[in-house]
């Protein structure tokens, strides 16, 4: 029996003032298929699905569900029509257990919950599903993969027959991603659901999707069966023209040790197990990539290096000197950072872009510290850096918090990449940047490496690690589980250590 819903958008257009986010998009998603939605950041993917789910009301155009015109006023409406969405940011309640999350999300949850009967019903429901998320553990103690499965199960439990998955594998290991997607695929083939899969990974499109729709700058630029398209064709549709990404050139040999962590220990953000880094060194002219699934201690590692997290044992040395990340040490030893969530961890949100760009040197003159600020010089430097790094800001005077995520990232990059640097510590430097910006950031990192800068690259993007790193270490459950030269390992091996079972 076919339960899955077919869905069509007809001439869907969404304008925000003068800006057209979505321009006359017509696409047909056949019931019981996996349909991939490809596009760069800002191509209109999320606008399209928000129009489908009723978060936005399309300026023009409409929606057909199983061939009948449908109006979706809000997400609750969408739910009633059998449309469900799994967001990138989980909407599970952290302190509730899996079972509690499932039952309370039901519109007809009983006033008094008899857990015996509810558990029996849940077990029966899960019995013919490929997923088995943990039901008795609070969500806050689940891994990203378990949360992802629980989110999908929740949608099925709520009766969704059309599922939108927003980059569902971005927080999963390659093996977990394959597992989740193949189960999803099996559900589609069984005619139970239809899936619209938002992604930018060709590998996933290739292995799991039947059809694909490509968006670029709000327009639909291509659509068809995946089997009829090559990766190159899809990439061309996405980017507009073929951009052959130049292989980054590596020159020079690693020099002396710049960063050394020995038996460094610190408490973890949550959970009883702490962070323990036995031995991690970065040499001049070398990029060491720290791979790992988010939540395995990378945030804590970064905080230990930036001085936000106090060590409970061991030490960090930079160029042979003990390093506590004070402002003086950072300045004298020429250490620079690009932490994750730069708006929170590397900027003063309400201060202007120009002031944020000057944070490293505003109180230092050529001879010692300075008291009076030279606003004009600050502004001049800011303008230059804004141009160099293509920061899109209405003016250098606006608060940095008003910029988009990608532009905040560029602003912080502009500050940290300028001047004399010996050690760069970066975490997910390309998160939220578009294709061209990613290429630019990676090129700058490689140039810095070739100049002899020591770089510690903490990244959840395995492709990025393999593209940039000379040496790869894997972080799992708070410690370093694996280390190898980049040439001597491969993604499968690193992935298995990331998953913690190797």
């Amino acid at each position, binding site marked *: 029996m076919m339960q899955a819903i077919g869905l069509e958008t007809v001439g869907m257009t969404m304008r925000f003032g003068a800006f057209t986010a979505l321009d006359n998009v017509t696409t047909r998603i056949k019931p019981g298929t996996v349909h991939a939605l490809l596009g760069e950041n800002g191509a209109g993917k999320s606008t399209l699905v928000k129009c489908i789910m009723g978060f936005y009301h399309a300026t023009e155009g409409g929606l057909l569900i199983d061939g009948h015109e449908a109006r979706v006023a809000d*997400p609750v409406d969408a739910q009633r029509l059998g449309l469900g969405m799994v967001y990138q940011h989980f909407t599970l309640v952290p*302190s*509730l257990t899996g079972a509690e999350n499932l039952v309370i999300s039901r519109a007809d949850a009983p006033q008094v*919950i*008899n857990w015996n009967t509810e558990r029996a019903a849940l077990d029966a429901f899960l019995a013919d599903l490929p997923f088995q998320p943990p039901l008795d553990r609070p969500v806050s103690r689940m891994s990203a993969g378990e949360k992802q499965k629980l989110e999908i199960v929740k949608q099925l439990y709520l009766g969704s027959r059309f599922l939108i998955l927003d980059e569902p594998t971005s927080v999963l290991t390659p093996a977990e991603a394959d597992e989740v997607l193949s189960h999803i695929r099996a559900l589609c083939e069984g005619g139970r659901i239809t899936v619209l899969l938002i992604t930018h990974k060709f590998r996933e499109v290739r292995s799991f999707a039947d059809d694909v729709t490509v968006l670029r700058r709000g327009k639909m630029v291509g659509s068809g069966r995946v089997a009829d398209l090559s990766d190159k064709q899809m990439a061309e549709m996405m980017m507009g023209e073929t951009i052959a990404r130049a292989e980054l050139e590596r020159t020079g040999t690693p020099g002396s040790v710049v960063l050394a962590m020995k038996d460094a220990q610190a*408490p973890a953000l949550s959970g009883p197990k702490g962070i323990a880094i036995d031995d991690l060194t970065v040499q001049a002219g070398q990029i060491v990539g720290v791979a790992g699934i988010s939540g395995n201690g990378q945030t804590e590692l970064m905080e230990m290096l930036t001085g936000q*997290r106090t060590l409970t044992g061991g030490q960090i040395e930079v160029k042979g000197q003990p390093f506590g990340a004070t402002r003086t040490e950072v300045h004298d030893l020429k250490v620079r950072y690009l932490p994750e969530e730069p708006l929170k961890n590397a900027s003063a949100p309400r201060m202007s872009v120009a002031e944020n760009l000057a944070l490293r040197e505003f109180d230092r003159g050529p001879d010692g510290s300075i008291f009076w600020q030279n606003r004009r010089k600050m502004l001049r430097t800011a303008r230059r850096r804004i141009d160099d790094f293509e920061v899109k800001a209405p003016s250098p005077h606006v608060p940095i918090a008003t910029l988009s995520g990608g532009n905040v990232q560029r602003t912080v990059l502009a500050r940290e990449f300028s001047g004399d640097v010996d050690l760069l510590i970066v975490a997910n430097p390309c998160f939220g940047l578009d294709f061209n910006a990613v290429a630019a950031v990676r090129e700058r990192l490689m140039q810095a490496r070739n100049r002899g800068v020591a770089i510690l690259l903490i990244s959840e993007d395995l492709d990025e690690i393999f593209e940039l790193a000379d040496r790869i270490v894997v972080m799992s459950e708070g410690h370093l589980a694996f280390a190898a030269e980049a040439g001597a390992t491969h993604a499968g091996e690193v992935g298995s250590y990331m998953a913690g079972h190797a």
Partner: protein
Amino acid sequence: MTEDLGIWAVPVAMLGGAIRVSTPFLFVSLGECLTERSGRINLGLEGTLVFGAMAGYAIAFESGSAWIGVVAAALAGAVFGLFHGWLCRFKGVNDIAMGIALMLLGLGLAFFFGKPYIQPVAPDLPAISFGWWSEIPQIRAALEVNALFIVGILLAFAMAWMFRNAALGLRIRVVGDSADAARAIGLSPNRVRLWSTAAGGAFAGVAGAYLSLYYPGSWNEGLSSGQGLMAVALVIFARWNPVMCLFAALLFGAAGALGPALQTVGFTSGYYLFFAAPYVLTLVLLIFTSSPGKAMEGAPGELSITK
């Protein structure tokens, strides 16, 4: 007629004290626990408690029934809670600052309206004697248990049950942990918080009525010794768990009874230092249960003090 129990007088007096002194702690902390579980903090409960004490005493005196007084105190507390909940829904209103303002407002109003009721004597709440089995008068006195204490114990377990087994309780937890998730399942965080804050205020009002109608059992301006404020610390110590609130309240009650207990066995000097025991305990517990490097476990995610 009292027997000489020697040093045993101290634990016996502390047991009695724990039961007697803990009741207001218990009610205020359960109220605060409920409010905080919905993601909002109400620092104004001290003011609510004192106003509840005054209102309860005044109504009990006018009506001649202590229980009508308790109901009146609960209603007065609920009104304060509703006011707080209603104000906090506006953008830019900080619940901590608003709570402090409401605390001062509650104290001021209670002193203003309470002036005529300092002299008159209102009926007391009845106590149940659980000490009939003992020959020792001190133990009999210690086991004079007020009905409200028993209500409080039942309430603690009922709340714990509600947070697990009732849709209402789960919804309060959802709202307190993630407003986005709450909206996704069609709940209005503001509405849930409004009523959670109102119920929390009602509990604080009852705590006040206990003070003025049972122990110490009269209305005056120095009635409360900060129970309403200490309850906030107590909830954190109890990790937002109602049953833990019960034990924490007993612990604070026992600490509060330490000073008077030492006085009865004849400590003549320095015993007043022990009157500070609950405050010292608050400070020590908060220091030792906190950690600079770890997120607090069990804290509702939407709470402004733990965000």
